[in-house]
């Protein structure tokens, strides 16, 4: 697989964010924050009937995209900021593109712009450093 500056990473798509997985995630994280499972309680935040996906799960879709691209142990660094909520039922896609290559270390590293979007709106964005293990 040839990777150059400007190369696009194959996207990772989520057809519908699953609220049941949020409940499992809340238990694994021991996260008592009810916005992830109490849809009726979210009325005062203006999203009655909806629950908010956990930040780590939002990031996981980008992680899955990177692992599909360069292997399951390819990630060296993730620097991200969250810019919007992901809600149950959302249709999402994770994207990325290579912005620079570093050949000065023992392994070939790609710095990539990464983002998660819903209908063109970015809900998470940042930078990933990825070892090009498949290249």
């Amino acid at each position, binding site marked *: 697989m040839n990777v150059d500056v400007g190369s696009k990473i194959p996207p990772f798509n989520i057809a519908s964010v699953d609220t049941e997985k949020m409940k499992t995630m809340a238990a694994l994280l021991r996260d*008592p924050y009810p916005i992830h499972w109490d849809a009726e309680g979210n009325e005062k935040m203006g999203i009655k009937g909806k629950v908010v996906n956990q930040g780590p799960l939002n*990031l996981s879709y980008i992680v899955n995209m990177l692992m599909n691209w360069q292997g399951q142990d390819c990630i060296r660094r993730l620097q991200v900021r969250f810019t919007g909520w992901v809600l149950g039922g959302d249709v999402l896609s994770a994207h990325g593109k290579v912005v620079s290559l570093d050949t000065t270390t023992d392994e070939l590293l790609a710095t990539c712009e990464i983002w998660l979007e819903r209908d063109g709106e970015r809900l998470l964005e940042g930078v990933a450093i990825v070892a090009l293990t498949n290249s």
Partner: protein
Amino acid sequence: MIPSEEYMLGLVGHKFPGGNRTIDRWENYLLTDCTTSPQLEDGLAHPIALFHIPIQGVQTSIAELFDLGRVKETGSVGLDGYDWEFFKPLREEIEYRCEGEIVEVERRFTDAGKIYDRFVFSIELFDEDGEPVAKATSYWRLRRGKVER
């Protein structure tokens, strides 16, 4: 009631107790399933374990972090971002030593006159040989509502 700025700034340097944490097979299976990914190979743990493993490994919890930050209401915590560094892949069934602290707190005001505290904590993981494996820094926003200035 909004916690005093003095209290909040005094949290900087607060060290968590520290301790050891192993990523169990069952836990990684469920975690990976939540991400919609197929299960990983060769005992690799899904990288997003770097959110909760460090927190639980230093013997704290999300609830305790909320208590430290004097968080009271639903919707008052925002997740600003992460900086995660992986020096080695995370793996199942390895006992990681976890150490960390609150590294930054800053009281800020939005343009709308609302107050919030930027709350940053950082935790490092070491393997059984004492080699660094990963470092997770989390940036939270603790919203305090509108105040007179």
